[in-house]
């Protein structure tokens, strides 16, 4: 396990992105984080297109997708990932400030692995990320 495992974080808000990075730092995985600014960039990364065409072949072990992003939103990215045979094994966690039920229902319909509402309190956010048992499982033993 000497290879660094990549975590894809798609977040358009730089402050949220920073909070996210700080939270993940808590788990000492900061080196492996790839931060993209919108859905289009996320897709470029996943499909190895544009500026990410040179990236190594390994898929990220998990993708945190903000729901509301410029260009392409999180749901669309998730849908594309889950319908692509090469990408669909990547666990998707939708992160959003919205509690709108329809987003939740739609996300689960697509097949995302988790749905996290950004809590107001940072501690709560860290707690939430911790509670994603799936995350730890993936960190240690990604599916083949």
């Amino acid at each position: 396990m000497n290879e660094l495992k990549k975590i894809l974080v798609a977040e358009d808000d730089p402050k949220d992105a920073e909070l996210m990075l700080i939270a993940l730092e808590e788990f000492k995985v900061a080196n492996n984080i790839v931060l993209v600014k919108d859905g289009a960039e996320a897709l470029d990364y996943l499909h190895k297109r544009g500026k990410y065409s040179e990236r190594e072949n390994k898929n990220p072990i998990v993708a945190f997708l903000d729901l509301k992003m410029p260009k392409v939103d999180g749901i669309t990215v998730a849908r594309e990932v889950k319908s692509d045979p090469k990408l669909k094994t990547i666990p998707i966690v939708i992160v959003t400030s919205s509690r709108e039920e329809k987003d939740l229902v739609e996300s689960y319909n697509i097949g995302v692995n988790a749905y996290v509402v950004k809590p107001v309190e940072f501690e709560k956010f860290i707690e939430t990320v911790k509670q994603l048992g799936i995350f730890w499982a993936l960190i240690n033993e990604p599916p083949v």
Partner: protein
Amino acid sequence: MKFYNKSSIRVKIKLIILSVCFMAILLVFAGFYIYEMINSRQMLLNDLSTKGGIIAKNVDAALAFSDSSDAAEVLLSLETQPNIRGAAIYDAEGNIFVTYRKENHKIEFPAKPNESEEYIFSENVLTGFEPVYLGNEKIGSVYLVLDLSEQIARSESYIKIGLLVMFGTLIISFIVATLVAKNISAPIVSLAGTAEKIAKLQDYSIRAEKKTSDETGLLVDSFNDMLNKIMERDRNIRETNINLQNAEKRYRTTLDNMLEGAQIIGFDWTYLYLNEVAVKQSRFPREKLIGAKITDVYPGIEDTELFKYMKLCMEERKPHYMENEFIYPDGSVSWYNLNIEPVPEGIFILSADITEEKMLQQELKKYHEQLEELVKQRTEQLQEANSELESFTYTVSHDLRAPVRHISGFLDILRKNISKDLDQKNERYLNLIKEAAVEMGNLIDDLLTFSRTAKAQITLRPVNLNYIVYEEIEKLKPDFEGRKITWEISKLPEVKGDPHLLGIVMCNLISNAVKFTAKKEEAVITINCQDNDDKHLICVKDNGAGFEMEYYDKLFGVFQRLHNTSDFPGTGIGLATVKKIISKHGGEVWAQSKPGEGASFFFSLPKINDN
């Protein structure tokens, strides 16, 4: 016979009586006379025969001995017989033997006796032969001549008497007949006179006078009775006529003055009647219409639908109602409501001009269409605004929450980083900032819930309220950890509602009850239900702080709070949200309280049948 038929009853009666009397007397007299004649003849014959027989007996010897003097002597004895004019005796050979003549009567004796020896009546005499027998041998004949003058004189006097009697009888019967005729005919004549007078004067009030109570009287009675009836009928007819005339006048006046056009068209398609309105509607002068054919007045009308129905009514007597667009010869158009009815003269058409109404209708329709278009536009605009609002709310939820989250997030990191150098004062400031951020977050969440509730479409489903209550209490458990709360929850009904929204209602009411009993050592929260005929009444009661009814009006308003945030934290949106949801379900919310004695919150939900 003609004369008889023409003559009056009186003359007839007279004639009948006279002729009957005359005939009777004539017959009686004739019978009597004939009988007398026959009788006297028979007597004469018998007389002659007897005398002849006697002479024959007396002269048989003289004849037998041809003694003429003796025979003459026998004949002379006839001198005493006044009615014998003469006699002769004939011998066996038939020669005259002896003759006798009375006085100077000239008598021609027949030369030979008549073989038949019969009696013969001639002008004034009766002559006859009587045989003379000696033993059985006929030896001669006796010839006698009987004078009939006396007889004739007698019959003449008979006739005279008869005529006299007849004359007398006729005079008497004439007098009687006149009286009888007068008596019998008078009432009839008077009746006839009355009848004639009535016929002449046409006055049915005249009555015949009743003079007798026989059949004539009966006739008079019947006649008068008949007159009464005629008068009655006459009066009825006159009354009916007057009524009819009045009715006709009334109808005609009604027709004439009606607001609708009225016209009658005959079977030959000519105008028989038009009221003023109809004339006006026709746009022709009356003189041009009456008697003219509609097909001539409006050439080409035969091809219209109107004419089709007129014809149908004319031929099959079928009434028809129609709204008709009538195009005048000059091309202008009017709308009419037409009633086409069959009448004995042809067809009757009632026409109401609805052109103005029609125009208004069309205009109204136009306005209506415009309005509909406007409504459509407005609806679209409204929908647009609504969706804009929705996306706005969504954006607000996303964008307002983000800065709050950031404040809170970075505050936590900051506190972590400087926790070692933090004095108590600065620690408190950090806590206040944190509290404000959390409060702001809650406010935004509550506002979002409220706005989502306002625009939420509710879908009614059977909802188990008990289940919802337990679910919400379960969710709220962290808020009352370590407190002593007695829950008294009755069996609640299954209601029809939106489970998610009703969950919000229960959550708000229960969390309020929990919140406002926070300062009680022992809290009692009661949830029960009372049903009436068409509603479920649900009550959530606590023994908490309560509120003053004075401020009741503010209770269910947005951002309205009756307590200090420091005493009981809250955003003041919860009860507004409850009210919104319950009113969306067709129910009502109210509350009762006294400060320090707790509060009772009630809401009602209509009972909805599955049918």
